[in-house]
Each structure stands twice: as structure tokens, then as C-alpha cells.
């Protein structure tokens, strides 16, 4: 993931510089977070074009509320909590406009597959199974298994406890295994 290229310390430094008015630091944050955030938003929205729109909206919100980041807290939970909020606002707005989410059986959803989960079966089947997970569990699974966040960070993003985040991710994994016909430890 792109975030790994500068690490948590680098993100913190860039964020502090950005708050001090260094707009080049925003560019650094954008470059570091863009890839992983797009993956997360794709996992939530299940649509590449929507994810691109939401990515831009997330960075716009992030810019507006940059004063709400409190150093030296980790940057990622703050960013992903804003991204998730942008997605939820988008979903509610779409619902109000009558655009309900429907996924046709023959359409392959564009949900990125975490590498650890890819081994459960062929990519297409895993992707479909992942798409059918409820948003809360899918988000926890993607944040932990794809983005490598700790359960504490996942809990901070989702507004739940560390234990609840762990339960959600494990249940999501168990549901995926069940859907894939994989038993026990994945063997």
C-alpha cells in the first residue's frame, strides 16, 4: 500500500507541516494516502467511478477540517473516519434521491480483495462473496486485512471498541469462508 512508503511517522510529520500552512505537505499526504483510500472507498461503494468522486470529496473535507487532527494521534484513523463519513453521506444522499444500491448477479463488483483472503478461492468468487458482506463487516475486514490497520485503529475509524472491531472482522472472515465452502483454518 502507498501509505507504507512513508510510514506512520512520515504521515504525522506531513500532517503537522500541512496544518502549519505547508501545502506541499498536502501533496505528500495525497500521494501517500490516495491508493489505499481509493481501495477502501471502492470496497465501501463497490463502484470505481463513485470511489474516485468520493476520494476527491474526502480530501476536500480533510482540507476543510484539517484543524481537527490532533497531533501526535495516528493520522490514518482520522483520515479513514472522514472517508467513511463521506461515503455514508453519499449513500444517504443517493438513497434520498431514490438511487438504491443494487448489484446484479451478472455484474462483477469492483471490490478490492485483501491478499490474505484471496487464497480462499478464485478471485472472482471471493470478490462476489466480499461484496455481499454487510458494510460494517466488509469495512472492518478491508481496514484490517487489506490496509493492515490494528484493531484499535479499525475501532477508531468505525467508532466502535477494539474488541467489537475484532469481532466484526472475524465474523466477516468466517462468513467469507462459509460462502467459499472453506472450513476451519482455511484448509
Amino acid at each position, binding site marked *: 500500500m502507498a501509505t507504507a512508503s512513508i510510514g506512520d511517522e512520515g504521515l504525522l510529520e506531513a500532517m503537522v507541516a500541512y*496544518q*502549519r*500552512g505547508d*501545502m*506541499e505537505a*498536502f*501533496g*505528500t499526504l*495525497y*500521494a*501517500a494516502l490516495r491508493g489505499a483510500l481509493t481501495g477502501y472507498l471502492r470496497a465501501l461503494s463497490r463502484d470505481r467511478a463513485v470511489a474516485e*468522486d468520493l476520494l*476527491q*470529496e474526502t*480530501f*476536500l*473535507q480533510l*482540507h*476543510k*477540517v*484539517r*484543524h*481537527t*487532527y*490532533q*497531533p501526535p*494521534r*495516528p493520522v490514518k*484513523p*482520522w*483520515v*479513514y*473516519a*472522514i472517508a*467513511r*463519513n*463521506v461515503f455514508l*453521506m*453519499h449513500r*444517504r*444522499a443517493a438513497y*434520498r*434521491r431514490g438511487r438504491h444500491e443494487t448489484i446484479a448477479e451478472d455484474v462483477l463488483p469492483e471490490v478490492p480483495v485483501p491478499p490474505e483472503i484471496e487464497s480462499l478461492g478464485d478471485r472472482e468468487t471471493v470478490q462476489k462473496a466480499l461484496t455481499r458482506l454487510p458494510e460494517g463487516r466488509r469495512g472492518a475486514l478491508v481496514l484490517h486485512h487489506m490496509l493492515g490497520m490494528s484493531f484499535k485503529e479499525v*475501532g*477508531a*475509524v468505525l*467508532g*466502535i*471498541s477494539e474488541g*467489537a472491531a475484532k469481532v466484526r472482522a472475524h465474523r466477516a472472515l468466517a462468513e467469507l469462508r462459509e460462502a467459499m465452502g472453506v472450513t476451519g483454518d482455511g484448509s
Partner: protein
Amino acid sequence: MSGRSSLPDGLRRALDADHRPVRPLRRASVRALWVALWAALALAGLPVVIGMRADIASLGFALSWGAAVFECIAGLGLVVLALREAVPGSGVTPPVGSAALAAGIAVQVLVAVLSWLQRGMPSGSFPPGGAHCFPMESTLALPALALTMVVVGRAYAVRPRWAGVLGGAGAGVVTDGIWHLICPFADLSHVLVWHGGAVLALAALGWIVGTAVEVVRRRALSSRH
């Protein structure tokens, strides 16, 4: 490595329009000092302006001023949680928030029960008298609620309704602590129904404010896409 040239046009325009340095938000407990200041001023001033309850001497210092300060501190605790909830990524988990809400109400009930016992368990009627306490206490809580919502609004609550409920209940419990020194009714049913009702109403008002914030944000997002 990355510069602004790589940014999409919309983002670059937003950066050009506003690139001033910002000061990070202070800790929730520090931001809550505004509400604490209001509580201290109201605690010192309102009982003098409106008039202290007639049976204050029989309650004793601990169950009058002590209980009032205790309730104010419990309410401020809820306000601190609302302000924490308003910072993305540091929200209050539902079990912690629910427990805090229950604790705030428990403090109010505890003060009511202890004061009632101290006053010799006066019997009340049903429906309890003194209904005017409900609008009086709710109105007096509005500045605390407004102040809390302004401080919450300075941040960015990703769950504005939840922050609103916590902040509203907090403002309600703080004000109930002050009203405890003023209200002349000592029967338990009065306190539980009208004072408890005021706290619940304030929490509901906080929820409504949070909903309004959410609607405004959703419309703003819709207009951009």
C-alpha cells in the same frame, strides 16, 4: 516526491482558496472549559437571582451545594464525551457513551433520592405538581446547549446525532445541578418527572441539532455531485 501539481484541479483550487495555517483542536477537556465557565457563573449567580429553595438549610451543605456541584461535574463529563465524539477517529464507542448517559441520569436520580430522604420523604401527587420546572429548567439549559453545540461545531462530528445527544444530555444534567438549588419541590415524583423530563428533552434537542447538521452536510455533498 509529490507536489501540488499532481493534485486534481478541484483540490488545487480549494488549497489556493484557503492555505492559512491552522491551530489543532485542543483536548476535549480543555474545550469543555467554556461550558464549565458558564456552569460556574450560573451556579454562583442563578440561585441568587431567582432565589434559593426554601428548604436549603435542612438539606445541609453536602446535599445542596455539594450535590449541585457533583451533578455539574457529571454533566460536564458528558459534554467532554460529546467534544471527543466530534473529532474524527476518536469517537466514543456506543457502550461507553450509553454507560455515560446512564451514569449522568443515575447521578440526577441519586441526588433526587438522597434529598427526598433527607427531607423526610414528602409524598407527591400524580401527575406531580410544579410542571413549570420543565420549561424553566429546559430554557435555562439552552445557553449551555448552545455553547456545547458551538464547540462541537468547531470540530467535525462524523456522527453528529450521537454528539448532539451526549452534548444535550450533558447540558441538561449541568443545568439540573443548578436547578436543584432553586426548585422548591422536594417530592421525588416531581424531580423524576419534570427534572428528568427536562434532561431527556435536552438530549432530544441535541439529537435534532445533530440531524440538522447531517442534513445540511448531505445536501452540500449532493450539490457538488
